[in-house]
């Protein structure tokens, strides 16, 4: 199952989360406001990272759907910190050469008058290396 | 009188060490000095004196007396004494030299302590005059002249030279062996140094300390002095004063069970210790005050009473320097002895 041990260990190291503590209660996913937007849900992130099944996650849009609201971290009864796992996978993805999820050129297209400046800045910070 | 340049002192040491073990004060890492065996390269200390007195050489802190070997229920007695080598102690100050006289009166009077006697026989003492006495020195109080140290050979050290004078046959024999390294001389330089020393002695803070109030026959007068309470009040009951003292000579005999037998040895005891002279019936001196008093009464009253008025303190000042609570014989003598003046 651990088909990508190096990536797995790296992600666990970056996240600082202990995925083995997960007891599969699903409260993270139950509490997730972006659940329906996500292909892989918080509990799946935890489980798949634990199993080393990383590739699908790296290629998933879910990485950019997570709002980093940290509700899952707050609610998790085992202190697994799913959002940090998601964050770690996202970092792994965007740290690859040319894998920035957003570039300066993309901005004008998505921006409109109502978009707060803060959102753009934080998205830029979050999705690029 | 013979002299030699200080440049050649190591040659002197080497010559002495040819036929005997040579011990002399050596500087330690902690800033103090201690007697160490001389080997090529060992440097002689300039310190006034060592922390521990040289009494160790004749009366070591522990000394095996005999051994009992057991095998099952059989016991065999083994003499553990080994043949002693001749040794020389170099650089002994006048006060410490005097302390050997005091020990001799204890250990060499009948019955003679054969362990001590044999060490005395094998030892040669080369003394050294004190050019820089310290504020803690009060040897004069006990009629010891730091400018005229005794011992088998007396020595004086000046800036560049060292002078020797033999006082005993043993000393003369040793000095003879050093004749190729020394030259005959007059005593002018030594006399000059003695004068200097005497001048310094007159400036020492404890120069006026007297033994007038003490001596044989004073037991009744001093034993119940009320001052003992106050003087002993802070005493911790440790053995520092007795173990650094050149004249304290009490010892305990103990058995150590090695598993295969018993080693019977003696070791220094201290009258400050709660089990001092403890016997089957219990303890003679039950309180620290009594033990404290014992130490000073012994040095200043009991010992002189039994030894023609000789006090068993030499004024070396070690206890002044080392007592953790700075209580010492000087304070006792002033307090108890000063009483009379009031």
């Amino acid at each position, binding site marked *: 199952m651990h088909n990508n041990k190096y990536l797995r260990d790296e992600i666990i190291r970056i996240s600082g989360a202990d995925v083995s*503590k997960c*007891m*599969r*209660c*699903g*409260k*993270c*996913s*139950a*509490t*997730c406001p972006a*659940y*329906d937007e996500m292909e892989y*849900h918080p*509990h*799946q992130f935890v489980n798949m990272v634990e199993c080393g099944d990383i590739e699908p996650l790296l290629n998933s849009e879910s990485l950019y759907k997570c709002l980093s609201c940290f*509700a899952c971290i707050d*609610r*998790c*009864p*085992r*202190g*697994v910190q799913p959002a940090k796992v998601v964050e770690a996978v996202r970092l792994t993805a965007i740290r690859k050469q040319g894998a920035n999820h957003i570039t300066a050129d993309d901005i004008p297209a998505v921006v409109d008058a109502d978009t707060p400046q803060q959102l753009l800045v934080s998205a830029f910070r979050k999705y690029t290396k | 009188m013979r002299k030699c340049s200080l440049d050649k002192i190591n040659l002197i040491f080497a010559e002495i060490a040819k036929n005997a073990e040579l011990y002399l004060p050596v500087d330690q890492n902690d800033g103090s000095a201690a007697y160490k065996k001389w080997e090529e390269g060992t440097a002689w200390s300039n310190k006034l004196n060592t922390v521990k007195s040289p009494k160790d050489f004749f009366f070591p802190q522990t000394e095996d007396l005999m051994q009992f070997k057991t*095998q*099952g*229920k*059989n016991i065999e007695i083994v003499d553990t004494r080994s043949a002693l080598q001749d040794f020389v102690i170099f650089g002994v100050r006048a006060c410490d030299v005097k302390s050997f006289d005091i020990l001799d009166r204890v250990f060499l009077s009948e019955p003679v302590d054969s362990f001590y006697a044999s060490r005395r026989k094998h030892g040669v003492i080369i003394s050294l005059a004190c050019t820089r006495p310290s504020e803690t020195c009060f040897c004069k109080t006990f009629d010891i002249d730091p400018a005229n140290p005794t011992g088998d050979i007396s020595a004086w050290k000046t800036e560049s030279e060292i002078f020797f004078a033999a006082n005993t046959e043993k000393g003369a024999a040793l000095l003879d062996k050093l004749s190729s390294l020394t030259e005959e001389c007059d005593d002018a330089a030594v006399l000059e140094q003695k004068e200097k020393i005497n001048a310094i002695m007159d400036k020492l803070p404890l120069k006026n300390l007297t033994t007038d109030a003490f001596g044989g026959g004073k037991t009744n007068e001093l034993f119940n002095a009320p001052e003992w309470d106050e003087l002993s009040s802070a005493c911790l009951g440790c053995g520092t004063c007795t173990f650094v003292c050149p004249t304290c000579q009490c010892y305990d005999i103990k058995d150590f*069970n*090695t*598993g*295969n037998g018993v080693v019977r040895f003696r070791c220094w005891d201290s009258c400050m210790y709660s089990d001092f002279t403890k016997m089957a019936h219990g*303890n003679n001196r*039950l*309180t620290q*005050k009594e033990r404290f008093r014992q130490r000073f009464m012994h040095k200043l009253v009991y010992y002189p009473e039994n030894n023609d008025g000789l006090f068993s303190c030499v004024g070396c000042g070690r206890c002044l320097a080392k007592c953790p609570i700075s209580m010492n014989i000087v304070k006792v003598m002033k307090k108890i002895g000063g009483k009379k003046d009031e």
Partner: protein
Amino acid sequence: MQRVGVFVCWCGSNIAGTVDVEAVSEALKSEPGVVFSTNYQYMCSQAGQDMIKDAVKEHNLTGIVVCSCSPRMHEATFRKTAAAAGLNPYMVEIANIREQCSWVHKDVLTGTEKAIILGKAAVAKVNLNTPLIPGESPVTKRALVIGGGIAGIQTALDIADAGFEVDIVEKKPTIGGKMAQLDKTFPTLDCAACILTPKMVDVAQNEKIRIFSYSEVTEVQGFVGNFDVTIKKNARYVKEEICTGCGACVEKCPMKKIPNEFNLGMDNRSAIYIPFAQAVPKVATIDPNACNMLKNGKCGVCSKVCAAGAIDYTQKDEYINEKYGAIVVATGFNPISMDKFDEFAYNQSKDVITSLEFERLTNAAGPSAGKLVRPSDGKHPHTIVFVQCVGSRCESCAEKGKEYCSKICCMYTAKHAMLTRDKYPDTEVYVFYIDVRTPGKNFDEFYRRAVEEYGVKYVKGMVGKVTPEGDKLKVQASDLIANKQLHIDADLVVLAAAIEPDKSARPLATMLTASMDTNDFFTEAHPKLRPVESPTAGVFLSGACQGPKDIPETVSQAGAAASKVIGLLAKDKLTGNPCVANSNELMCNGCSSCANVCPYGAISYEDKEFRMPDRTTKVRRVAVVNPAVCQGCGACTVACPSGAMDLKGFANSQIMAEVDAICK
């Protein structure tokens, strides 16, 4: 000096095969103290034992060394032999030359050499042995049970059945505990009241049992067999022995708006109240915080209507001192507070309730007379969501939850869901679970019935958020099997709150010097072999104070605790283990190091007057070991820097003699 006899056993060829027994007995002959040494085929046989007895008489032996099998095997045997020969049994030492010598070494030379050394060590030890006499202490033939729930009730009844007096101390006005609040019990669905109230009546009527209700234990002194306990009887302002429990006062009391604890605040009671109809003792109690008469002297209605004249506004707290031989702790549990679980909106909506509240809602004697209605509007709920593991198995949230599994929630939730579907088939019932844990007789069958026969929807997943919206509760949850997020509009949400030990347990444990784990559950003397005893001798554990338990488990543990108590009280005297610590008061400086490490609270301190060397006297604090409580572990002997504390039978000198003998 001891006169030691050495007896080397061949154990057939077990020892003699690898150890030259003749050489061993010969070698030990010359050891100090040994006056007789021999060997024999089977030392433990009658003939072997007779040989020892004869030798004791013939050679006037004062100590015995048997070189044989492990002391764990035959130490007791040879001690009896010694006793039969008129020797103190503790003058026997065993050298283990079988398990720890002949059986592990193949070479006769090595085996013999080692056997001799082990023999020498035993001789060295026995030379320092002293006769030991076990201490005896009388036993007060009365037990105290702290807590009057089902655990306490059962323990008390069992002890009383055996003919011993028992006192129950219950801090509530009535006994009955949590079980009295329950509706039905799983997995048989008997009515809780129907099986509990007869037991409560039994307790009330049993001559051997006294109930101190509305009371607390405030001080415990003494030790096993001889506890001295102070019980504080809180003033209830009603003369217990006169009150008939008629209820007239309750009816007439003008203060009627006091939240009713028994129904978990879901309805109100009066200032003078009887918790429930079957309360034992069935006497009224005045709540001093609510009663106008007690607060400002204005009212007195109850006193006027009480025909028996039982009301006494001047009653004071009363302290009772009683002696007990044994104490049973049965302080039970409580559901944890839901205040910190914001996500479930417990404090925002009346329709989010705990399971215990649900019990009251469905109980015929409850606030809604057994009709399942929403607490907010009294309407019938159509969609009910049960959430399991609320606060249980919660590692990250120590400040609000518990790390352990509360054990009973899976089953009562299944019960609640099943009963709901049974009574109200029109309701939709969801149960969100992490795991369903049903180890127990008929438990899993019960849970499956809820799913298969009653159509309860079990969803693997957790509820993430409950949001009150209008008269609905929006429940957002995950369904891990379907990999979906669910959004349910519920009418009622029931939280299976974790359970925790009662808050009174911690101070009680301190009083009893009984140990507790980090969760405040009492620790047992041994987790497997002594599960109902506390490490403190004479203190026993019953029910959920030791760990989460359901009723059948509680009752069986209660019975087990009772049997241990009966076993203790049946003795007239307690014979202690003589290998106990003892403190030399002349050397002890009272520093408390030993008491700090004693797991049994066997060490206390006394101020003693000592004659000082200067003929004055000085009062000094010194340690005193209670030999009846000490179990002889020796922890104190090492904690003691002065060596004042030593252990009989394993004294410093004895162990060092063994070390010396082995190392020489």
